[in-house]
């Protein structure tokens, strides 16, 4: 039996998938993306954060039963409104067993997994099988660059994406954060387009998420310093045509 650490449960999270959803933010992430906007989700343990409104503890421990019970309290409402539950983070795969146990206890809720895919294949498959939709983040294809900007190797990520594409479900969406001068380069976009084209089963759509300079807004609350190492204010290169050959709808969010 695994307990999990959650740093927020957000109701009516309108931008985390279809319909009315409640999003569970799982605490802890193996990556350290320089542009991460959720620094309170990085560490695996509960921590005190200090915002202008005062101190609070970010991170609460739940058993799978407890968390499932909270979500099930709203099951009827979420389902009635074509929504469900989104597991985000942090990185939900970081607590894959816990999330899996929570999903097992949900009363027929639509499950969206919002992940960047960095995990062992076994863990990824465990949650992918139980999800109704996956938001899969792709950041950088060149492996050195990925290592440099996110602190982790992208091999497991690309591997998991490939595995996902060989299964016939669940449907998935590829989401690309456009970080100026980092992920939005022509080279990287072409690399991503190439990979998508080669996937056996393509995504439902591609979403481009232009970087917003508010990404660093919560760092000092967590006692961290935001050091983006890139020029935040630089114009973002948005070239939708690159994905033309993929034959997949592209949206800018």
């Amino acid at each position, binding site marked *: 039996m695994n307990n999990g650490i959650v740093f927020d*449960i*957000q*109701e*009516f*999270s*309108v*931008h*985390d998938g279809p*319909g*009315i959803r*409640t999003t569970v933010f799982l605490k802890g992430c193996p990556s350290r993306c320089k542009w991460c*906007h*959720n620094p309170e989700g990085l560490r695996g343990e509960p921590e005190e*954060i200090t*915002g*202008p*409104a*005062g101190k609070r503890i970010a991170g609460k421990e739940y058993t799978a039963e407890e968390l499932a019970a909270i979500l099930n*309290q*709203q099951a009827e*409402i979420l389902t*009635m*409104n*074509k929504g469900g539950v989104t597991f985000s983070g942090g990185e939900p795969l970081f607590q894959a067993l816990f999330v899996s146990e929570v999903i097992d206890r949900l009363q027929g809720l639509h499950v969206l997994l919002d992940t960047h895919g960095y995990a062992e294949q076994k863990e990824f498959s465990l949650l992918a099988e139980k999800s109704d939709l996956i938001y899969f983040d792709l950041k950088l294809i060149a492996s050195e660059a990925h290592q440099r900007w996110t602190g982790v190797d992208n091999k497991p990520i690309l591997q998991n994406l490939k595995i996902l594409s060989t299964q016939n479900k669940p449907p998935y969406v590829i*989401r690309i*954060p456009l970080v100026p001068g980092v992920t939005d380069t022509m080279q990287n976009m072409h690399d991503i387009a190439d990979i998508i084209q080669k996937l056996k089963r393509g995504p439902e759509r591609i*979403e481009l*998420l232009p*970087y*917003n*300079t*508010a*990404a*660093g*807004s*919560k*760092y*000092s*609350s967590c006692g961290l310093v935001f050091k983006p190492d890139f020029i935040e204010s630089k114009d973002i290169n948005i070239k939708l045509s690159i994905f033309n050959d993929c034959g997949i709808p592209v949206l800018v*969010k």
Partner: protein
Amino acid sequence: MAMNTRLEEMKMRTRTGVHKDARQSNIIDIEAECIREELSMMQCVSRLTRRMCESERVIIQEDENIVFTRTHKHVPISFMTRQSGQQHSERIFHELGPISNICADWGMVLSQGLLQRKTMAEETLSHLENDPDAVEFLSAAIETIDAVLNLVKRYSVKAKQLGRNDIVTMLNHVPENPPRTFHEALQFIRFVHAIVWLSGHYHVGLGRFDQYMWPYLKDDLLEGRIDMKNAEDLLAEFFISLNKDSDLYPGVQQGDNGQTLMIGGITKEGLDGVNELTYMVLRVARDVAMIDPKINLRISKDTDLELLALAAELTRLGLGFPQYSNDDVVIPALNAHGYKLEDARNYTVAACWEFIIPGKGMEVVNIGAVSLPAAVDEGIRKVLSNNGTFEDIISCTADNIQLQVNNLVEHYRKLYLPPAPFYSVLMNGCLETGRDLSKGLDYNNFGIHGACTSNAVDVLAAVKRYVFDEKSVKPDSLIYALDNNFEHMEELRQRLSGNEFKVGNNNDYVDDFLISLLDIFADACEAVEDNGRGGCIRPGTGSAMYYVWLSKGQENMHEPVVGATADGRKAGDYFSANLAPSQGIKVKGPISVLQSFSKIHYSRIYNGGPITIELSDSVFRTEEDIMKVAMLIRTFARLGCQQLQLNTLNVEALKDARKHPEEYSNLIVRVWGWSGYFCELDEEYQDQIIARHIHLV
């Protein structure tokens, strides 16, 4: 878009107030006249309407298609107090004195025209010539009708001078006769509605606008006299005109004038009443984007998402309306408390949220508030200092609530309602029976609001949990802490104020107190058999300004002020407003808030008072987002809640949130592909979001 250059200019002029240059600041000395001629109160009131109409300046602006601009700044109503003081020394007034906060039967008046109303008065007069009260009232009513028609005639003459034959044609017909077109119907209402205000009445709402106006628009459309675009154009002008004089209307704050307008809902016969005008009102209100009229939308569990999405677009503007009420809940509750089914189905709202029946109610829906925090505070102080049980606290609280209700009702037994001959012209049955509306109509109930519910509930939950269940807080240390405003007891205060055991989290442990406290309040109201006017007492859940007043005190307020409370709230901090979680409490979110407040027994708590939820306008940016807000509104109805006010936080509010983060702990803003709590962002980023919001406007 309903707006064009002409309307934009008209709106701009209204906002800058060019029309105010024509205003007269002289005050008519009605009192001297009344004394000199030894007029009765009834005669004084009709004389007031007449003099106001006679001395209005006629203003027709070149580009106007619907005329009337009020020029009198003041309505001299002070004579009422003095006159009535002589005649009724024991009596008290409600608020300013004149009849307010009721709704005319606009549909009836339109369908008859003022001439037919006058004929009715004359007919009744001929039957009742031996009844001096009836004779006096009917003569007064006729005097007011003549006064209005004379003013309209002067407008017509002026229009002729200006070569506006279109207006001449219209004014030669309405409001004397029933309108022949949608345009004439709007002109009719503009005149008659404005003159109700001009007669000293206030909180004059427009009732079920899409129901009584639709027949005129429908006929125009069928006959090809008008197209939708021109109809929208006229409606937009009408809405703008309602903003012209609103700075002259009394209210606690500017804009708090009660100029409500109801749309949607079922008909008197129980059929779906939504029509093309329902949609048009929402579109035009969205495009005009001014604070009047204040749109209310009646919905049910089956209301189309398309209509709700349009309403959500209006909500997005951050004007604080539409306000939603749930037919599935309101109608049965009214019906169970003496309202005929066809009347209950025809409900509208008073100035804020109270459910009233157009043309049939002489109700005083806000005689005052019961301070629920004061009641529970007294309960815990009395009982904890005597080692009593938790049940003792509840029973002591109930006694206090009954006492507060009784005090209000006793006070209002001395209520004096001054006559209102012109308003009576617009009501059902007054001219027909020769009785002024102040003598009572079909419904004569009073409303009392249970104010600041959430704090009171949170206090009970905290005391039950920490003092009785856990026994981790000693009764005397709690009382000491309250007496000393938690000085040097911050740890205790924080424990009591923890977010988890607070109303709005869909936690039954807490919400059971919400149900029982309001049931106790309903019991107390039901225990009053007669309010002195043949009516009952309707319990509600609105707070209006009480969330400030009950905490800080206010001159002439009957309700007790409460210091620090056992939910960890410090003395002087604001209480919760309407049905919203207590200030500064971070609850799980809007779904849980709806779930918590859906548990109230609305069949007994039926005076109105909305669940209040704040959303950032960034959560409805795309069509898909708007549709989700529409789903949230439908969820409100499907959960069986009663009334909903959905506020959008705009730039000003965001700025305020930065200054007072403790009051906005639930405010969510969209930052990037994600949303965050506004108050947890660093200041510079808050600035940035504010800047981005400015960008959006």
